[in-house]
């Protein structure tokens, strides 16, 4: 085995090496525990780095410095934040439903962590290679809604409840386009297994990869998936459930200390897992972007792409204002849903049209025309558009 491929498989080899110390009947169990420990250690670590990067990135976007006091360039900020949230008083409102109030953040974090089980982080690096991995991910994603509801309801606070209702309504609505835009990939790959999906994107034409995002339907699907993912993870511009100008902090208004930190962690982990799935489905998972870059370890590519996706999310957050609840719903049902349905049709057509430039032209034209038309109709319908102004001398 060459050194490079050993580097590629370093975590897998490490797992096998450690498990080798245990009796044979215990080895699968130990191996699983090790993999779980790896995931539980790695992603919160990324969470810590992301909070700093997000604050620094937003700062730079806003012409500020961002945190730069704790440690070199402020990179120990999450340590300080962690200590702070651990030592803060844990306030439970007097009228709150104690048990549910306590369970809500736990349920959220557990559910979110489960999502990582089917995420292929690198070659041979998936915790559970399930036949229906994609389905598992969406099933787990659906159960985070419950914890949001639990948090909002148990706080006995109007803002919390309003925030929870908004969040749940939003998550349910955007689950539809999220699922439908991922269905395209299933249609093309013929499998729900995340590993197979990544492998299907493994080839190269010249030095360009066969990622699904480089096809018309894949690109449209990617954009739709990212928009739905933003809504699903309550990121700006869909951060209404915690819109501080209206709802103080939404469903976690009444949380403090470490429970608040858990919500925070859960939100970011949700963002990572959904971004990881966007990468797996459309951006070739752990595959290298160019054939000549294949020597870089596969997990390296995955985390690089994840960082890129996070940067995109931060960039969007720094730029866009927030939508309103009814506009959010309108957007989901009147724009996202038709577009994803059309994308399904286009993907089917693509599949049966055969190779050639023609299918490229036709599919792109159909999607583009639908997009422009739909956008125009929506804007026209609500009488939106640029305006001109008159002057008095």
């Amino acid at each position, binding site marked *: 085995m060459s050194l490079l491929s050993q580097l590629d498989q370093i975590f897998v080899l490490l797992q096998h090496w450690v498990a080798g110390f245990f009796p044979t009947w215990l080895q699968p169990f130990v191996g699983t525990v090790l993999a779980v420990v790896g995931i539980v250690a790695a992603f919160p670590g990324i969470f810590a780095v992301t909070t700093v990067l997000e604050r620094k990135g937003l700062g730079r976007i806003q012409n500020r410095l961002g945190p730069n006091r704790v440690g070199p360039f402020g990179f120990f900020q999450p340590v300080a934040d962690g200590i702070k949230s651990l030592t803060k008083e844990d306030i439970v409102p007097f009228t709150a439903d104690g048990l549910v109030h306590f369970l809500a953040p736990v349920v959220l974090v557990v559910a979110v962590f489960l999502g990582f089980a089917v995420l292929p982080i690198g070659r041979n690096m998936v915790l559970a290679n399930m036949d229906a991995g994609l389905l598992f991910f969406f099933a787990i994603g659906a159960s985070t809604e419950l914890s949001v509801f639990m948090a909002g309801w148990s706080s006995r606070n109007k803002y919390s409840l309003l925030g929870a209702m908004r969040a749940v309504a939003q998550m349910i609505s955007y689950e539809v386009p999220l699922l439908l835009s991922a269905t395209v990939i299933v249609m093309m790959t013929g499998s729900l297994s995340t590993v197979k999906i990544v492998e299907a994107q493994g080839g190269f034409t010249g030095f360009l990869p066969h990622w699904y995002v480089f096809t018309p339907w894949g690109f449209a699907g990617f954009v739709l998936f990212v928009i739905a993912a933003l809504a699903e993870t309550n990121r700006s511009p869909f951060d209404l459930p915690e819109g*501080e100008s209206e709802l103080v902090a939404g469903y976690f208004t009444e949380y403090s200390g470490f429970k608040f930190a858990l919500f925070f962690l859960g939100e970011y982990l949700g963002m990572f897992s959904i971004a990881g799935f966007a990468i797996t489905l459309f951006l070739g998972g752990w595959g290298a972007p160019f054939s000549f870059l294949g020597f870089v370890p596969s997990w390296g590519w995955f985390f690089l792409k994840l960082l890129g996706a996070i940067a995109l999310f931060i960039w969007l957050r720094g730029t866009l*204002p*927030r939508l*309103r609840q009814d506009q959010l719903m309108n957007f989901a049902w009147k724009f996202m849903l038709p577009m994803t349905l059309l994308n399904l049709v286009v993907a089917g057509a693509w599949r049966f049209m055969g190779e050639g430039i023609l299918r490229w032209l036709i599919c792109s034209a159909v999607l583009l025309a639908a997009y422009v038309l739909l956008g125009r109709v929506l804007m026209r319908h609500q009488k939106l558009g640029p305006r001109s102004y008159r002057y008095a001398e």
Partner: protein
Amino acid sequence: MSTADMKVYRPPVIDIIEEGDELLEVAMGPHHPSTHGVFRMDVALDGERVIRLKPVFGYLHRNHEKIAEKASYLAAMPYTDRLDYFCSLTNNWAYALAVEKLAGLEVPERAEYIRVITAELTRIQNHASSIGFLMQEMGASGTPLMYAFRERERILDLFEELTGSRMMCNYMRFGGCRVELPTGWLAKAQTIVDGLPKFIDEIEALLTGNEILMARCQGMGILKPDLAINAGVTGPMLRATGVNYDLRKVDHYGIYDRFKFRVPLGDHGDIFDRYMIRVLEMRESVTILHQAIKDIPAGPIMDPKSKIRGFRPKPGEAYGRIEAPKGELGFYLISDGSGNPYRYRVRPPSLINLTILEDMCLGHNVADVVLIFGSVDIVLGEVDR
């Protein structure tokens, strides 16, 4: 719009609440993150729709008028800074104008130019930060606000260099200005003014075409011109409804008739128009500044008749008003010949523009209430005084 075709305004009657409908009463404020200070709105909601809205203010009442009646004319000047703490220089000007009318003082030409320059700089920084706050309420993570504050910092540096203070300038005096421009100030001001169009372009590129902004602002919080006139709304709020009323053009106070500038007018009276009117007014202010900095003459900056100590105007009354960034700011003074005014009254644009809040908000969403409130552009210091 002439007075003839103005109808008597009747408040809209909401009687669509069917029996058994439960209203959710939410008290937004006084410690709500988006009320620009301490302000409360008692909102009755049907779902998320506003059925009733009762603004409650007075949390920041500081007895400004009574204090000014007990203090000397000069000692009231620093208190005017604290009315609308974003635009202390225009507040100074309005008060100085009222006292000048009362005491019959003449302002030297150079002082008038300085007043115009500082007032227009104030207008630009106020409009920029007001847009920033509006976007903050729309959830834009503070990006436009930070850009606005970046520019505002430069303007405040200018103010500090001239007046010694960034926000509480306390600069204008009865019959002129307090200190002469420091050497090199005009050149610095010129470079900053030259940089402003770029900043306004940046804000516009970031916001004006943004579809989310359009969706949130267009057709929201519509104010009709007749209601605006009847309620005494002034400033960008009024001009966004299409009423051509700018005191700089109407009163010709100071030396504004020497400058060439236009008054932008909106046609819809919604949040988007208010936003755009502010952007366009900033552009017009830049042209005024260019002219003023070019034309400023040399000369004295104080009326020699004006006295610092023992200032006692003859008995009489005067009302001085200017086009402050937020609207018509007026000071009404009655003198009984003593060292302090007998009656001192402020006409605060923020308070009067806020009176129509309920009419603009009815039927909209809670989320829109926050936006509509933000688009009025108020400072609680001026509302409650």
